[in-house]
C-alpha cells in the first residue's frame, strides 16, 4: 500500500492503517528523539506524543513535501518542547546521578572505575551535544542519527544547503573544542 493510500485510509478513520504508518516510522522518530534526550524512556514518550500529534493533524498535511519531512519537523518540535518542559526535572535527575556516581566511586574496584570513566565520557559528549545552539543541534542530530543528506536537512529545517553545511561545520568545531580534554585519556 502506498503512503498516500495509507494516509487516505487514516483520514477516513482506519486505525489499523495508522498502526501500519506508526510501525513504518516509529524507529526513525525514536532515533531523532533519543538524539535530543539521550534516554529511552523520554524518547518513547516523545515518540508517543509525536504520533498522537500526527493523528490529530494529519488532515492539515499538505502533500507539497514528503510525509517523512513533515514527520521530522513534528519530531524536532516535540523533542524541543519536551526538553524545555522538563528542564527542572532533568536538573534534579542529573544531580542525583552525579551523587550516585560519586558514592559508587568510593566503593567500587578498578574495573568499575574504568566503567565509570566511560560513563563520564559519554556524559561529557551528551552534555556537549545538548549545549549546541538549537539550529546546530537540529542539523547535527539529523545528520548523525539519521544519516540524512544536507539537502534533506535543508528541506526539513526550511533553509538552504549552504546554511546547513555551515551549521554542521560549526557544530563539529564546537564539539571538538568542548571535548578537547578527552584526547589525553
Amino acid at each position, binding site marked *: 500500500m502506498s503512503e498516500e493510500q495509507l494516509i487516505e485510509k487514516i483520514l477516513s478513520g482506519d486505525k489499523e492503517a495508522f498502526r501500519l504508518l506508526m510501525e513504518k516510522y516509529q524507529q526513525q522518530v525514536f532515533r531523532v528523539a533519543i538524539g535530543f534526550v539521550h534516554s529511552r524512556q523520554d524518547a*518513547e514518550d516523545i515518540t508517543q506524543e509525536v504520533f498522537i500529534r500526527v493523528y490529530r493533524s494529519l488532515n492539515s498535511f499538505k502533500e507539497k513535501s514528503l510525509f517523512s519531512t513533515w514527520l521530522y519537523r513534528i519530531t524536532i518540535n516535540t523533542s524541543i518542547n519536551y526538553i524545555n518542559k522538563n528542564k527542572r526535572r532533568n536538573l534534579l535527575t542529573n544531580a542525583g546521578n552525579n551523587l550516585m556516581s560519586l558514592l559508587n566511586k568510593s566503593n567500587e574496584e578498578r574495573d568499575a572505575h574504568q566503567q565509570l570513566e566511560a560513563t563520564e*565520557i559519554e556524559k561529557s559528549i551528551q552534555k556537549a551535544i545538548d549545549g549546541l545552539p538549537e539550529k546546530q543541534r537540529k542539523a547535527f542530530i539529523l545528520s548523525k542519527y539519521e544519516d540524512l543528506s544536507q539537502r534533506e536537512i535543508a528541506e526539513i529545517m526550511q533553509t538552504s544547503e549552504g546554511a546547513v553545511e555551515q551549521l554542521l561545520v560549526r557544530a563539529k568545531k564546537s*564539539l571538538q573544542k568542548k571535548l578537547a580534554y578527552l584526547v589525553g585519556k
Partner: protein
Amino acid sequence: MKIDNYIDDFIRKEKEKQVNPYLATRVLAKLEKNDEAVVFGTVAPIWKKLAVAASFALVIAVGFGLGSMVKGDKEYISININDAQLENLNLYTLIDYDE
C-alpha cells in the same frame, strides 16, 4: 582515541536502542481513551449548563406564578399626619413660654 571516534561511538550506541514494540498499541489505546474523554468532555458541560439555566428559569417562573396567584382585599389604614401637631415649634422658640 580521537574526539570524532568518541562521538561516533556514543551515537552508534544510542542508535542501536530499539523502540518498544508495543508503542504503536499504546498510542492507539491512548487515542481511543482520548476520543472517549473528548466525547464526555464536550457533552457533560453542555448538559450541566442546560440544567443550570433551566432550573433558574423554572425558579423565576414559579416565583412569578405564585406571586400572581395571591389575591384578596387589601386593607389600608389611613393615618392623618399633621406636622404642626407632631412638632410644636413653640417648644423650641420659647414663644408663649411661662416660667
